[in-house]
């Protein structure tokens, strides 16, 4: 297990290093203008130069937005999934709006957002929620509906009500699909917070990046993008870890002789 994790980290590092090498190579071989795509070396230099601002302020601002937004989003998604599962009417009335909410370009609604949420944290959280709840709802809902029919019936013969079928069977068996959605959402949460900051902010990595872009400081812009990516990867990884934790009990046992050939 620890061995596997160590190996994972090695692979991850390898893939990041490869990425940086390819990036540097692209910059040099294709002679990309540095003000459009700066080489990673200069980006890392900028990261170091701006470390106080980035790590002292902006990273934390964005991190808070992301985490709060994602947490509320999961809550919202679960409540929606729950309601849609228990009432066909709610499902039919609500589902179209969920889809609609994802097709509206945020720019169209940004004035409304500003009017309603202003420039404080709530606005960024709202955008993050808008960006992330959808994949969770769709996968959780699909997961819940795909619970084994025969098991549902067996539970009914035990006198289980809908709530018990939900808790004892549908929820556990939808976990794999729920986590697929959560991983996607975790990744998107970073973009959500960034866009949230673009609607109006005075701190955060998105704000920083935009300013850097306005000042033609491509390395600084990419330094913030690098941090954003890093944040996204961490969140994805955390979601994966959570998945292992929550569904691991049954997996752990599976990993025995029987799996040698898989």
């Amino acid at each position: 297990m620890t061995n596997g994790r160590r190996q994972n980290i090695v692979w991850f590092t390898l893939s990041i290093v490869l990425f940086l090498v390819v990036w540097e190579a692209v910059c040099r071989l294709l002679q990309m203008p540095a003000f459009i795509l700066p080489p990673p070396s200069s980006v890392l230099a900028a990261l170091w130069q701006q470390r106080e601002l980035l790590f002292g302020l902006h990273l934390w601002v964005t991190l808070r937005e992301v985490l709060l937004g994602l947490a509320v989003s999961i809550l919202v998604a679960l409540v929606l999934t729950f309601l849609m599962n228990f009432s066909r009417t709610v499902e039919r009335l609500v589902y179209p709006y969920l889809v609609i909410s994802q097709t509206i370009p945020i720019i169209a609604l940004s004035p409304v957002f500003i009017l309603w949420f202003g420039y404080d944290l709530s606005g960024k959280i709202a955008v993050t929620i808008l960006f992330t709840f959808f994949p969770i709802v769709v996968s959780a809902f699909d997961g819940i509906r795909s619970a084994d029919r025969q098991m549902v019936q067996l539970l009914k013969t035990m006198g289980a009500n809908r709530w018990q079928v939900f808790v004892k069977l549908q929820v556990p068996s939808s976990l794999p699909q729920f986590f697929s959605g959560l991983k996607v959402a975790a990744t998107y949460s970073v973009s959500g917070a960034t866009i949230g900051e673009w609607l109006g902010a005075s701190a955060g990595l998105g704000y920083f990046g935009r300013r850097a872009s306005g000042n033609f400081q491509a390395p600084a812009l990419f330094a913030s993008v690098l941090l954003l990516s890093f944040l996204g990867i961490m969140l994805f990884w955390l979601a994966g870890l959570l998945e292992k934790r929550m569904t691991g009990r049954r997996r752990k046992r599976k990993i025995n002789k029987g799996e040698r050939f898989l």
Partner: protein
Amino acid sequence: MKLQFSQVSFSYGTQPVLQKLQLQVNSGEFVSLVGPSGIGKSTIFQLANGLLQPDEGTIELDGKPEQNRLGKLAYMPQKDLLLNWRTVVENAALPLEIQGLSRREAHKRVIEQLDRFGLADWADAYPEELSGGMRQRVSFLRAAITGCRVLLLDEPFSALDGITRVDMQEWLLSMWQTLGITIILITHDIDEAILLADRVLVLSEQPIRQVHEFNVALPRPRTVGNRHLPQFQQTSEQIWRVLREARQPATVRLQRGDNR
């Protein structure tokens, strides 16, 4: 609890399974259900426990027509249907949890029984780690532990070796006698059907219009040795005869309502 089918008809789509079937199992009775594969035994169970509703006719519990039969009868399905994320104990405790018992209490009750079922060392094992027979025993335990007054057992011992099977049969009989519950058992083993039951119901035609009843007049307690009693042999032969006569529709070509 008394269970009664009055003029029950049922079909899957266009394929009739039951037609105006009369069937009665008295309170405290032990009845075996025997018949060729695919005739409709499991379907009868699903009608009884409320998973299916008859197209016509009524199903009565204790003399009263009862629409909502779910949760009133304990049911051991033909497939073991264990939840693969629950351990043996957690799987068997499921109906108790659903009845509202605390996790602790439910587990306690299950653990008390594990030894009897040869599962004592496997309390925390997951279904994937069990052999076929062990899974069947967990499923059996899960149904037996519910405390319902009627127990529907769909081939509960088919995956067990002879000795374990006798063990389980004995346990079942003792439970039946102490608790005074009603048991209906589907089995393909005619000897088992006779040995355990007060009455053997034989299904032989498709769709099922009537059942052939055989009262087993052997005194209790019975042992495996009873097999050699002439009475036993006679009942057994009668049942075989009924089944053999109806052979054609059962295995060679099943009659279906539609003709694909």
